[in-house]
């Protein structure tokens, strides 16, 4: 039913794509995602998949190809990173507004300048409010699993929204890890056929896509509808996760709670740094410190009340943002967690750490320092500095 392979994160995503075998792939290569499209181009060249593979002249074209193909009724995929996602930006809200369930993989990479090919989350965090669902992955296995589930979540009748799945550039995309790869037939059965609502290729039932809707129209109602669909994705992703557990043995939630049941001090983090932080949690637990961790999987929709419920008994919480916030009230995840706590009337001391920008190493010692800061904050009841940088050179 599955094979264990030693492969990089990029190859794991390409394997998932091969098994899904989308109808159309519109892509443009960019580091550190390139290996995915190269691998997929090989599958196409060898005749292993029947996908219409369109190497575009830019990312703007790649995502536009996906929009057209998805409106035609095709199951459509693309991959990108960093500046590539930035160039797609104009089309991202068009894809979500048109309710096209395109599935994209973005390998997280810093946004220029200075030019940097390494990991941070500034690319997808910049696209977090474009109406796309966002699912983050700690390692190659999660990237593989999330990418397959994303097809079902995106295409679900209650959702019908484009979805991007992420993993960290290089440390995951280029590092060889142990990945359980499901058989093609199992994945194909799981994702099934896409049933499009108004496919352009249905010539017996012609429709109009991309029409104008101005004053006196329904623009606001369409937007409210979209928000409802984003909310629906919470329950749908949990339902899909249950079904996926049946074929894989791995079940995912909106986020992962690691040793949170009795945690006094918690870190909230996204992607691969969760792996580093879990090691620290284990070490601290051995010393009797009640450390815990929350790793975000579903970032859009944002599981606000669920996260607050998981944090409720903590004495102090650190939120880690791998993106330069450019506002002095902290990074995007910090803002979201703060707002969520405030809305739920939960007043836990919160502190923000900006880390790992442009691939800067994040060490266990950095994470240890965060937990020790949390102990101080809990003791004094004061957050001396709400926004801090980890691993900055003095």
């Amino acid at each position, binding site marked *: 039913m599955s094979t264990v392979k030693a492969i990089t994160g990029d190859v794991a995503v390409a394997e998932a794509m091969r098994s899904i075998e989308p109808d159309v792939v519109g892509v443009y290569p960019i580091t550190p995602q390139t290996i995915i499209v190269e691998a997929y181009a090989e599958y196409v060249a060898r005749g292993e998949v029947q996908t219409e593979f369109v190497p575009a002249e830019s990312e703007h074209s790649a995502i536009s190809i996906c929009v057209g193909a998805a409106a035609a009724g095709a199951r459509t995929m693309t991959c990108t990173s960093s500046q590539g996602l930035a160039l797609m930006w104009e089309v991202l809200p068009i894809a979500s*507004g*048109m*309710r*096209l369930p395109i599935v994209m993989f973005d390998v997280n990479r810093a946004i220029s300048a200075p030019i940097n090919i390494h990991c941070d989350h500034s690319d997808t965090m910049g696209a977090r409010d474009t109406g796309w669902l966002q699912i983050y992955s700690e390692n190659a296995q999660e990237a593989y699993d999330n990418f397959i589930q994303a097809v079902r979540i995106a295409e679900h009748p209650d959702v*019908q929204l484009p979805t991007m799945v992420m993993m960290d550039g290089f440390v995951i995309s280029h590092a060889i890890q142990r990945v359980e790869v499901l058989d093609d037939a199992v994945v194909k059965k799981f994702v099934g056929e896409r049933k499009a*609502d*108004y496919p352009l290729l249905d010539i017996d*039932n*012609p*429709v*109009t*896509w*991309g*029409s104008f*809707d101005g004053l006196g129209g*329904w623009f606001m*109602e*369409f937007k*409210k*509808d979209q928000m409802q669909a984003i909310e629906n994705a919470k329950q749908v992703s949990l339902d899909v996760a249950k079904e996926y557990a049946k074929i894989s043995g791995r079940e995912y939630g909106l986020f992962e709670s690691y040793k949170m049941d009795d945690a006094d001090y918690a870190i909230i983090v996204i992607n691969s740094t969760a792996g580093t932080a879990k090691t620290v949690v284990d070490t601290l637990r051995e010393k009797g410190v009640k450390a815990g961790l929350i790793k975000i999987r579903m970032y859009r929709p944002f599981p606000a009340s669920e996260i607050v419920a998981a944090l409720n008994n903590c004495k102090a919480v650190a939120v880690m943002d791998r993106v330069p916030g450019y506002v002095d009230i902290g990074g995007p995840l910090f803002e979201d967690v703060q707002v969520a706590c405030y809305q739920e009337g939960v007043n836990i001391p919160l502190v923000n750490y900006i880390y790992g920008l442009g691939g800067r190493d994040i060490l266990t010692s950095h994470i240890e320092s965060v937990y020790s800061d949390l102990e101080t904050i809990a003791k004094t009841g004061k957050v001396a500095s709400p926004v801090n940088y980890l691993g900055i050179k003095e």
Partner: protein
Amino acid sequence: MSKKWDYKNVNARNIPRGAVIPEAGTADDYETGGWRTKHPEVDKDKCINCLFCYMYCPDSAVITKDGKLVGFDLKHCKGCGICAVECKKDAIKMENG
């Protein structure tokens, strides 16, 4: 044209997902004539029925019958004047209204 979709009775609960209009050719219902400040008038003495105006009109507002120009559909003619410019016989004049 037969209407499969009752677009005049849309409400917040039945708007189609993704702002799709579940039928084609709906430009017919969009009366661009309301934009007009000038309208074309043809001098039939000059007109040779070449139908350049018909081909150039962006709103398919030139009415023809048996290969001859017979007039303009003022519900859709937006008064852009392209027909008047393209007519090689100078047979179309743009008049107010």
